[in-house]
């Protein structure tokens, strides 16, 4: 990729943020989803409602949380409820518009793995942290977005473990499975954006970041990637977006004493 004055991580965060409209209720995962959601809040969507699974509703952190339960999230929230309440009344109760997730692996139907790498659950090659709240976010939010960097190791033909359901086996299989909501409606990567085909539900490359080619995206996908007839060109970051995101990371680094990006 060329070096256009911003990183792939930045454009992917910015593109994700752009999609979050004002007033949307977003159940936010830690890391990239949290960065994108807060960037949206600090730019075009001041009234976006951010919910973290630690029970913070309407969180307005001044710096990005390192963990899902940072005090920063509680301090400026509209209210702080218990963990069972956040999952029961707010997520399972159907109050969440967008569930915003990261993942270790994703397949072509937007199913995700955050449990193990390797084909033996009892003896994994790599033990990942596990499900957390992802299975219920994936099956209860009105729609889900997944933000993940593309590579043949993350975009796989077959997941080592299906932790959280996306469009399951494609077609109407998600609906038949009993999951609620529309499932993954966007997968935002460092290459562009994939959206499900309306019928087959297979992820299709629908937009590319500036300077990224279809071939690059294909090379970073572990299955034969379908490409939309019209691939949209994602606009480069505006000055406001870039400055706001970088300021956020600088503030975060200062507060946490860590490096200034979330990579």
């Amino acid at each position, binding site marked *: 990729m060329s070096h256009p004055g911003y990183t792939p991580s930045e454009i992917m965060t910015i593109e994700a943020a752009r999609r979050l409209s004002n007033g949307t209720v977003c159940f936010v995962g830690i890391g990239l989803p949290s960065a994108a959601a807060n960037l949206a809040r600090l730019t075009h969507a001041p009234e976006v409602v951010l919910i973290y699974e630690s029970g913070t509703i309407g969180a307005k952190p001044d710096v990005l949380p390192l*963990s899902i339960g940072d005090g920063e999230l509680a301090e400026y929230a509209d209210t702080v409820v218990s*963990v069972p309440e956040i999952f029961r009344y707010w997520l399972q109760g159907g109050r969440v518009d967008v569930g915003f997730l990261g993942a270790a692996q994703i397949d072509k139907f937007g199913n995700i793995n955050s449990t193990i790498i390797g084909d033996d659950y009892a003896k994994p090659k790599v033990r990942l942290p596990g499900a957390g709240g992802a299975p219920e976010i994936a099956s209860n939010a009105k729609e889900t977005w997944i933000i993940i960097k593309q590579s043949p190791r993350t975009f796989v033909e077959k997941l080592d473990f299906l932790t959280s359901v996306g469009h399951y086996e494609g077609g109407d299989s998600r609906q038949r499975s009993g999951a609620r909501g529309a499932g993954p409606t966007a997968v935002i990567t460092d290459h562009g954006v994939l959206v499900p085909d309306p019928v087959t539900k297979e992820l299709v490359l629908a937009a590319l970041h500036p300077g990224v080619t279809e071939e690059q995206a294909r090379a970073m996908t572990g299955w034969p990637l379908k490409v939309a007839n019209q691939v949209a060109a994602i606009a480069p970051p505006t000055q406001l977006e870039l400055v706001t995101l970088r300021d956020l990371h600088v503030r975060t680094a200062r507060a946490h004493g860590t490096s200034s990006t979330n990579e």
Partner: protein
Amino acid sequence: MTDKIMPLADAVRRLVKDGQTVALEGFTHLIPTAAGHEIIRQKRRDLTLVRMTPDIVYDQMIGMGCAKKVIFSWGGNPGVGSLHRFRDAIQNGWPNAVAISEHSHADMAGRYQAGASGLPFSVLRGYVGSDLPKHNPEIKTITCPFTGEVLAATPAINPDVTVIHAQKADRKGNVLVHGIVGIQKEAVLAAKAAIVTVEEIVDDLEAPMNACVLPHWVLDAICEVPMGAHPSYAHGYYERDNAFCKEWDGISKERERFLEWMKAHVLGTPNHAQFLAYAGIR
């Protein structure tokens, strides 16, 4: 002053026994680290450790051989990465084999709620399409007698002992939990016995009317342990020690360095105050 207020070492000695099911809870906030260290000092073995989010303190307990099984929904060092000792136990059986029972957050929360509610099971909309039920016989289904919908059902959790950390207790032993309250109330009420470590013991809790208060009569031991949640935080008292959480990654990576650190810092100190002093924390 109630006789339930006691030193942490006494509380662990009296209430935590080998082979028990023990939950140390705290959702990123208010993690009962000091209590975990004391369980390590007293060399408890064969514990079934329950915790939604095993992190550093469980990494330490597992690495020091306290656990035979871990029941959890997310295991990691938040914002840093993996738990090396937890992984080493699962992948290589060091220092001993550790079984796991893996759930999702909503499920674990519901299981504690069922335990606190005197119900044998919890119902949730979850695990649709997920591989988790294939590897966990504790995740079953149940059919709604009204709509015919099939939902997930899992058994209640009722720990032998739950341990939490909170901001303060009054002299009767009533406890106030403030801020991100997590799953603590449910974990305490689900348990047969409960230990609470607190930042301080005060004359008056000054709790707002609808605050999360645990009355003394549901608790068995209340222990004053300032900074007892470190490297986690106590809202209104101190911040999370992010530097230590990062440092833990290095300390825990190799078995030898881990053991050395634990021997010097935890086994080598008689209590949490001495641990903090030795580690140069605040």
